[in-house]
């Protein structure tokens, strides 16, 4: 039998991850009138009755209505509460709590921890909320994974990174991942470091300057590592100036984050064995960089 994505999710998530921990309770010797007020203020339709830290029952809006009908609102909660309470355990999967909701048609269920103490309350709404939070988290993870792809073609490894414009929170992630990949493939650490520095600068340039982000493709070949960085605009007006250390068109906001020192392209050129940049204002920029795996490095 094949499980759907949501089925898998409600099986993996546990009750304690979805329950409300802030629980409104009453004591058994308080009056039904008091219970009614508490429920109205907290906007709940039922609540656990707790005595000396132990749950002794549950009182619902229906119990209150019954007490009202008979004019017994001054009687203690103890007299009207339900003693035989259906509970769920904190460690149960959500699916088990959900089938209990379906079977009982209750609107809320008390959650008990391992010591049989009240840990919280679970409702269909709190389950829905937990599912949405988890879905959001998984989607964010997927986006992160989507942004990087690896493929092997004829022995050469290709790593591709999509870099979103303006996304400063993720700046540097492509370079970190690339460096990790190179290390795991036994590339000389000094070369891996130069590749990582160049990638970080290129990535930062895409984030700061590009109109729609861009792409970094790294090819690991037998004798060299190639880096191709492309974007579709806005392009560089004056490449010679862009290559001058200290020249930057970055905004103050970007500079405050520590970027935009005007050293990006110069840093890339310094690290690389081969450096080529082509740009057309209004169209985009293409950067070709190569690192030799053998031979002297330009830094030494």
């Amino acid at each position: 039998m094949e499980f759907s994505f949501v089925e898998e999710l409600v099986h993996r998530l546990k009750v304690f991850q979805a329950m409300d921990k802030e629980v409104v309770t009453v004591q058994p010797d308080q009056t039904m009138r008091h219970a009614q007020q508490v429920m109205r203020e907290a906007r709940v339709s039922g609540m656990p009755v707790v005595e000396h830290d132990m749950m002794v029952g549950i009182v619902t809006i229906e119990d209150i209505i019954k007490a009202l009908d008979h004019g017994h609102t001054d009687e203690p909660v103890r007299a009207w509460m339900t003693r035989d309470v259906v509970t769920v355990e904190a460690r149960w999967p959500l699916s088990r709590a959900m089938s209990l909701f379906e079977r009982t048609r209750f609107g809320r269920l008390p959650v008990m921890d391992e010591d049989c103490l009240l840990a919280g309350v679970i409702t269909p709404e709190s389950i829905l909320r937990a599912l949405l939070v988890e879905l959001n988290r998984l989607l964010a993870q997927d986006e992160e994974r989507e942004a990087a792809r690896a493929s092997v073609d004829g022995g050469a490894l290709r790593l591709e990174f999509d870099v979103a414009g303006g996304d400063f929170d993720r700046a540097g992630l492509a370079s970190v991942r690339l460096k990790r990949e190179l290390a795991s493939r036994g590339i000389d650490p000094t070369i891996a470091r130069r590749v990582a520095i160049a990638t970080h600068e290129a990535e930062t340039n895409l984030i700061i300057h590009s109109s729609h982000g861009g792409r970094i493709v790294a090819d690991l070949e037998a004798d060299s590592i190639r880096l191709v960085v492309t974007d579709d605009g806005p392009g560089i007006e004056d490449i010679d100036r862009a290559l001058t250390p200290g020249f930057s068109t970055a905004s103050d906001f970007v500079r405050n984050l520590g970027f935009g020192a005007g050293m990006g392209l110069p840093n890339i050129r310094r690290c690389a064995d081969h450096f080529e940049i082509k740009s057309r204002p209004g169209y985009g920029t293409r950067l070709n960089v190569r690192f030799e795996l053998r031979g002297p490095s330009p830094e030494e």
Partner: protein
Amino acid sequence: MTVTEVAAQLGLTAVTTLHEKKLEGAIASDLLSDVLANAAPGFLWVTIQTHRNVAAVASAQSIAAVVVTGGRQPAEDTVALADSEQVVVFTTAASTYEVCGRLYELGVR
């Protein structure tokens, strides 16, 4: 001088897992490209920057440890990335100027 020796001498607070490494030098800068251009593996980096790029730059440069000065707290994702890249991150209430002065006195040059 090693990472933990410096941390003990300067009373730095570690916000990541500690990794003992010999320090090869130090750099003080708040410009990421400056660090990418002028740091070297095994360096200690003194900065006021706190966002995740600090960890990315430190990783690219194989920096041993980052000291975030002025009582600033690095963001959660900065700490997480630094941890996964085995970069030690410290915080201190002292200023960059003070930290650098003490480091120089200790012989980190």
